[in-house]
């Protein structure tokens, strides 16, 4: 059968990152093709190349056998490619019909023809079994229906290939079932679908063929009928080498942090933490692995007092800190390197020195009778800048002018200057270059050697594997399991990350 879309040796790199490295991919007419891989494996970048958001550095795209140049999204749409992004591109105050015809020429230019558009949308919706009311504004619709609008938008533009980027991430289980029913109907009508996901079970149940990507390369393409979750998990995370940091054996002390059946809601008021329990002891690093968006940010925030705990208890050194003010928790000796240094970790318009004293400005020696003590602050900041090798012309430069690595050093210098008993490090090396990453990781190991309890939350599996003394995996707001690092089994962790508990470590004693 002739392929609908064929990619040949697609390369795309960004400064410092090779996102796609000679990727080959073939999509047949009428198939559901899953693209599976970890965060940063290059799935979305590849699809953005197909959809004309990025130009590939090299390689060729064939559409129905013909080589094509796709410069922008309009070209892709004209060919018959539709893409539904993880974050919907809808205008909330406008109605379904208005959103669907947005950007298309109207048959009655310069006037809109909403009536005939609504009729066509109704017909289309009926044909594909996607019930929708064209005159309702988007903001009134639940997320699952909004996604339906996105799909209809692509169908209205006569898409033959539908790219769905993590379509189930935002859906409830019931909505996922609905979506799958619709996708199967599409397939019967001859449409092709590319389904981007990192959830093994879903991929197994919906797709005809599966392409696994890792670190910008295609590992393999297999028919779903001839593989199993275990094999997929190994292909997804399996790596030969990773950065190893030298560290003395762990000597855990007293329990510093204890969570007991902690529950919390996300910003969208959906359950984000569904009964989390674990302990972190002095002098150990507990690493939490998991794909982004499985409740890791919420976990860090509830411990730091920045998010309300709806049920359960959090104790630090035996003292209950559930729903305490952030200030009280800081004073208990809890330091926190937040995942987002630009919006939370730093006051970007403040100077380096103002940021360095951000959590201790109201304590002696920096404050006396409510007045900031210039000399004490200068001395402290000069020391911190020297010790942590923060590259800045002087301490009074706005921190936003520093490079990302130096900004993160400012955050870490501030947090460690509090001499914390517990350090929560969420995505501590996200977006940093190799040197800064190395530095930050070494600092954490040193703090751990000095007896600090460290909770490391990272979506980079390498980082968790190389730093942690124990490893936990989070999936959809739950801890799938906790294992000591030396007993960690990559397949097991891969399965946990993809939401499957089925596999038992004992089956294949393949350890790292």
């Amino acid at each position, binding site marked *: 059968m002739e392929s609908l879309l064929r990619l040949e040796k697609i390369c795309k790199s960004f400064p410092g990152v090779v996102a796609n490295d000679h990727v080959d991919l073939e999509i047949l007419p009428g198939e559901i093709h899953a693209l599976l891989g970890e965060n940063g494996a290059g799935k979305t970048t590849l699809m953005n190349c197909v959809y004309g958001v990025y130009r590939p550095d090299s390689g060729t795209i064939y559409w129905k056998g013909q080589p094509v140049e796709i410069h922008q999204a309009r070209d892709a749409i004209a060919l018959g490619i539709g893409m539904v992004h993880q974050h919907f591109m809808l205008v909330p105050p406008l109605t379904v019909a208005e959103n669907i015809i947005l950007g298309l020429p109207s048959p009655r230019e310069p006037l809109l023809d909403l009536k005939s558009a609504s009729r066509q949308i109704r017909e289309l919706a009926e044909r594909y079994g996607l019930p929708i009311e064209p005159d309702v504004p988007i903001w009134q619709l639940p997320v699952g229906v909004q996604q339906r609008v996105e799909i209809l938008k692509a169908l209205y533009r006569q898409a033959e290939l539908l790219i769905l980027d993590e379509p189930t991430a935002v859906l409830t289980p019931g909505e996922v079932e609905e979506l799958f029913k619709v996708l199967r109907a599409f397939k019967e009508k001859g449409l092709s679908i590319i389904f981007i996901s990192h959830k093994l079970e879903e991929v197994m149940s919906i797709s005809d063929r599966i392409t696994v990507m890792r670190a910008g390369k295609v590992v393999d393409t297999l028919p779903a009928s001839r593989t199993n979750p275990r094999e997929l998990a190994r292909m997804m995370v399996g790596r030969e080498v990773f950065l190893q940091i030298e560290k003395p054996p762990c000597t855990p002390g007293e329990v510093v942090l204890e969570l007991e059946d902690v529950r919390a809601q996300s910003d969208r008021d959906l359950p984000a933490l569904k009964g989390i329990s674990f302990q972190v002891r002095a002098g150990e690093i507990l690493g939490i692995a998991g794909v982004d968006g499985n409740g890791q940010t919420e976990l860090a925030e509830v411990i730091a007092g920045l998010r309300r705990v709806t049920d359960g208890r959090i104790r630090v050194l035996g003292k209950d800190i559930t729903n305490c003010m952030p200030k009280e928790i800081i004073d208990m000796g809890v330091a926190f390197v937040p995942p987002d240094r630009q919006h939370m970790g730093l006051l*970007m318009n*403040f100077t380096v020195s103002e940021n360095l004293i951000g959590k201790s400005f109201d304590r002696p020696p920096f404050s006396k009778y409510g007045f900031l003590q210039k000399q004490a602050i200068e001395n402290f900041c000069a020391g911190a800048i020297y010790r942590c090798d923060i590259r800045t012309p002087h301490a009074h430069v706005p921190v936003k002018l520093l490079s990302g690595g130096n900004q993160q050093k400012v955050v870490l210098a501030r947090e460690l200057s509090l001499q914390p008993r517990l350090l929560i490090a969420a995505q501590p090396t996200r977006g940093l270059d190799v040197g800064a990453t190395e530095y930050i990781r070494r600092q954490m190991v040193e703090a751990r050697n000095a007896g600090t309890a460290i909770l490391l939350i990272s979506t980079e599996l390498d980082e968790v594997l190389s730093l942690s003394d124990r490893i936990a995996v989070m999936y959809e707001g739950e801890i799938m399991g906790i294992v000591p690092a030396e007993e960690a089994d990559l397949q097991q962790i891969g399965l946990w990350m993809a939401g499957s508990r089925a596999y038992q470590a004992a089956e294949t004693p393949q350890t790292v």
Partner: protein
Amino acid sequence: MLSTQEVTNRWQIVYRRFLERSFNILIPLGAILAAFLISSTLVIARGANPLTAYAALFAGAFGSTNALANTVTRMVPIIMTGLAVTYGYRSGFFNIGAEGQLFMGAMATTWMGITLVGWPAWLLIPTCLLAGALAGSLWALIPGYLKARRGFNEVLTTLLLNYITIQLFEFLIRVDHVVGPGATFLSWIGLKDPSQPFPKSAYIAEAARMPSLTSVITWLGGTTEDPALQRFTLAAVIAVLAAVVIYILLFKTTTGYRARAVGVNPRAAQYMGINVMRTTITTALISGALAGMAGSLEIMGFQHRVIQNFLVGAGYDGIPVALIGQLNPLGVLLSALFFGALRAGANRMQIVSGAPVSIIYVIQSLAILFAIAGTVIDLRPRRLKQAEIEEAKRVEAELAAESPSAPAADMLGEEVRHV
């Protein structure tokens, strides 16, 4: 680590920091100069000579003790409201309600001044001032609380409260002020002078009025013939002191640190352990107190009673004064001087040169535009700017690599153009 090259660069650093700091003053000065320059085309269009016009304006503002007294009188309330807006804005509390808080302050001060007759000056002056500050801050507490606890937009609440205040004021200056036997609560809080048919209060007690230069000279045993000296009062000194105090509060104390941190990024401030709600409420109280004191100083220093339309617009003027002053308390002094001088000299300019009074509003508005435009001027060395641009590019590429939402604009861009 300090390398040798960085040591040799140290003088450059000192020079640069000096430049950065003096910039707070240079921007408003440049903005004011540019405003005068461009407005001169309008003056010429009216057939007048801009040099004559501006000379007359200057003479009308600074040319005699009388002119100077006019300028100072107009400066004092807008220094205070400018400070109120500045402090609020720095903490993310955009106080549009300085006008209403000023009226509350003026009413409270007047009430004290006409009720506590017989108190000695050393007690009555602080009491009156305090009453004004308290009234202003309590009035600002309403929007402050609503913002902190309920997330109400303070721009709306403060603005709407202004109308309520003006109505309350209009009402109270029509209610006879009667204390002692036969007084009801309403007559007790009323402000109108019962012996007069007009809606205005009685003069406040002598002891409640701000001492002036004349009284200082008399006290020292001298005599003076110049009536203008009576209008140089302690109120002006207090206003200047207030600017210095607010400068120290904002930049040298923990309270100011909290306020500025919340103003820059409330989420980050909360993460750092700052109580954002409490800070917002404190900010509202301080901002309101400053605006309330604007009313007190006007009554105690110059007008000595409230009367219909006794001081309209000074609260709103605080906003441009704060903006031209680069939201810096010391800059506020400078821009309030500019505003005060323009208004004091406007009449003389019209009489001498024929350029209409309304020219000053053109100058004023242009100065605001230039002052805002001036904030984007970047004095930093090119190397730093380049580094920032590259960092931004890198972050963008990174985000693009890991998140699918980044290129959203690109994606709609081409389509939307055809709508």
